[in-house]
């Protein structure tokens, strides 16, 4: 009898489980508002003031038409997006970096926007070629870019002039000389002013290496950690560390990292000579009341390869439609707005990111934004380095960073560390 009862209860429990499971994900129909407008859900990965900019664009879009109502949500956690997709509760549109867009599509998670573009004859020529390429996989566009970003070099004019230089560096060799002249230690060996742009780490991994002509992957997306440009760059980095003491520099970098983009940011405080950073930096400096007298110049090339000047990463923020979205038509309609002239302009000016639309390059408001003219010039030389379309991109970058840590800690020479990385990344796809 007991066995029968236990069996009955277990069966009942399984049934109770299977009922909600069968309906998990809910309806494929999109919801409507009380006044009959179709709801379009939109997730963006911004917070604070930047989230307000997105909410502004959403409000503008909702006021511009009466068929759809976009409901925005700030979601900075990728885990939530993935879980939502897996449980069929994905938003209709989401905004993310182009590298994430490509990763998601490599896993078959997106609806191609190319189908809508072809069906409507939508004009994509208004976007820069780089920004379209960044969102293209297998010949199809999977998202539209709303902004673009690249990194260039900020320099502290006063520190440079005090060291006797009137012009910023054009080559890595010049930059090294200036960095050594300006770097200042106190009596205990603590770094007071950092000359060489060791911080942020992401720029040391990228722009300092791109300037030497190096890249971490080839045109087929295969890892190339032993690229001569990488080794040259790392050897210069190590030379500087040996000259001023790796642990002293690490302490400075650790503090710089904790205070990044705050009032105490090392560049904002005049304690960094060179800073490889993005077009948003001038806006932040204004917001934090920094009085540093700075200039913006291209990432240096080398004496042997001056053509590498301005070579820096190129990425976009893009809007895409998950394959399981409930209101794809509404999603596409909103994408056209937010990635169009009016929507993108508000986003670009509000967040300090650069336009992906070439038609915005000459807009007076865009040109008037601090730093934008210099950065747009950098975009126009077309020296941007795009991330490879690898399945294991994030995993590879983590491996690269771990290998760089051993080089920075002076526990392995660049040659040893990169040889180890080459062996470790042999199965990276």
């Amino acid at each position, binding site marked *: *009898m*007991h066995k029968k*009862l*236990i069996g009955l*209860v*277990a069966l*009942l*429990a*399984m049934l*109770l*489980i299977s009922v*909600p499971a069968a309906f998990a994900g809910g309806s494929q129909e999109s919801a409507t508002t009380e006044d009959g407008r179709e709801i379009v859900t939109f997730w963006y990965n911004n917070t604070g003031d930047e989230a307000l900019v997105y909410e502004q664009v959403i409000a503008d879009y909702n006021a511009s038409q009466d068929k759809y109502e976009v409901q925005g949500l700030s979601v900075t956690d*990728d*885990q939530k997006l*993935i*879980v939502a*997709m*897996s449980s069929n509760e994905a938003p209709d549109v989401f905004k993310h970096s182009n590298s994430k867009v490509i*990763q998601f599509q490599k*896993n*078959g*998670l997106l609806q191609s926007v190319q189908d809508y573009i072809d069906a409507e004859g939508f004009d994509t020529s208004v976007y820069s070629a780089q920004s379209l390429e960044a969102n293209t996989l297998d010949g199809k566009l999977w998202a539209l870019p709303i902004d673009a970003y690249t990194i260039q070099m900020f320099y502290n004019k006063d520190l440079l002039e005090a060291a006797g230089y009137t012009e910023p560096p054009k080559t890595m060799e010049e930059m090294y000389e200036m960095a050594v002249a300006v770097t200042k230690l106190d009596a*205990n*060996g*603590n770094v007071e002013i950092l000359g060489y742009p060791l911080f*942020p*780490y*992401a*720029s*040391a*991994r990228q722009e300092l290496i791109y300037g030497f002509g190096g890249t971490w992957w080839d045109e087929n997306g295969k890892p190339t950690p032993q690229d001569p440009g990488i080794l040259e760059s790392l050897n210069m980095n190590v030379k500087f560390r040996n000259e001023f003491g790796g*642990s002293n520099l*690490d*302490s*400075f*970098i*650790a*503090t710089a*990292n*904790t205070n*990044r*983009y705050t009032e105490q940011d090392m560049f904002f405080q005049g304690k960094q000579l060179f800073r490889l950073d993005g077009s948003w930096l001038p806006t932040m400096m204004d917001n934090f009341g920094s009085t540093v007298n700075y200039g913006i110049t291209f990432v240096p090339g080398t004496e042997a390869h001056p053509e590498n000047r301005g070579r820096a990463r190129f990425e976009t923020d893009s809007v895409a439609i998950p394959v*399981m979205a409930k209101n794809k038509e509404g999603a596409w309609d909103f994408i056209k707005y937010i990635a169009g002239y009016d929507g993108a302009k508000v986003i670009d000016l509000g967040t300090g990111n650069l336009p992906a639309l070439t038609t915005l390059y000459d807009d007076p408001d865009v040109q008037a934004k601090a730093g934008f003219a210099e950065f747009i010039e950098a975009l126009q030389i077309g020296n941007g380095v795009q991330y490879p379309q690898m399945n*294991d991109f*994030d*995993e590879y*970058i*983590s*491996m690269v*960073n*771990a290998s760089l*840590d*051993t080089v920075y*800690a002076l*526990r392995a020479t660049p040659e040893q560390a990169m040889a180890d990385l080459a062996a*470790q990344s042999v199965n990276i796809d």
Partner: protein
Amino acid sequence: MATLKLTQKQRDFRNGLLFALPWIVGFLFLSVYPLIASLYYSFTEFNAVTTPRWVGLDNFKDVFSDPLVWKSLKNTLFMVFISTPVNLFVALLLATIVSRNFKLKGAVRTAFFLPSIIPMVAATMVWIWMFDPTYGYLNNVLSWFGIQGPAWLMDARYTKWALVLMGTWNVGTTMLVCMASLQEVPVSYYESAEIDGAGAVRRFFSITIPCIAHVLVYQAILGIINAFQYFQQVYIIVTANAGVKGGSAAGGPENSILMYPLYIFHNAFTYLKMGKASAMAWLLFIVVAILAVVMVKLTAKVTDSAGRE
């Protein structure tokens, strides 16, 4: 049709089961189903969204051949075998101190316990500041003694020790349990020992420790299981250190704080390799289960001997 006549015992059993049904449903739905599903996923290539594809033992082969799995296991074992005993020792020490009678005893107890109720995320953020090599309290205190502190969270030689140090701040709950068990030790034992001429150290090791051994072992089991699940603190540190657009490895400097659960998380949600993550989770489950059995047997032995005493 014959009616089914239930005895009182059977009726009680049925009613009991029905009362337990909500829990049973929750247990089956939230524990058993994910457990079985993850076992299935461990044999598939699965990105958490699209249909899983059966790949047999490939994920397990991948796990065993991935050097980062072993590195993450080694880092986790460091926390299990270094941080757990250190925490237990600190908790016992604090419990011994606050069990004595002195002025402001209540305030001191509260001060020691308070960190335990602070959310881990907030506490970790505070510790990131405390570890700051330039402005942090820790290096400032060290500098009073002429010691130049390291970049705790940047230098792979110090990162795990920083975590151990951080753990000692959060032993309030263990301290309370130890305190309660210390109060259970009969005062007459100490009085007899004192008459026999035993000093404070002898009394501690010959009376206190044997009398509360069963509690210590139980706390050690909990500590070890928690150490195997060490995630939140390292996730926050790594995320904060990565900065905008990422600049450090997924497991901190040289992956020195890549804990096993963090690596599972990265595989599942960053690399979208839910199959491999499930395989890793199952291996962890097996290791912890074996360890738990060993510890339970050990506890039984200690409890028996404590009972005999």
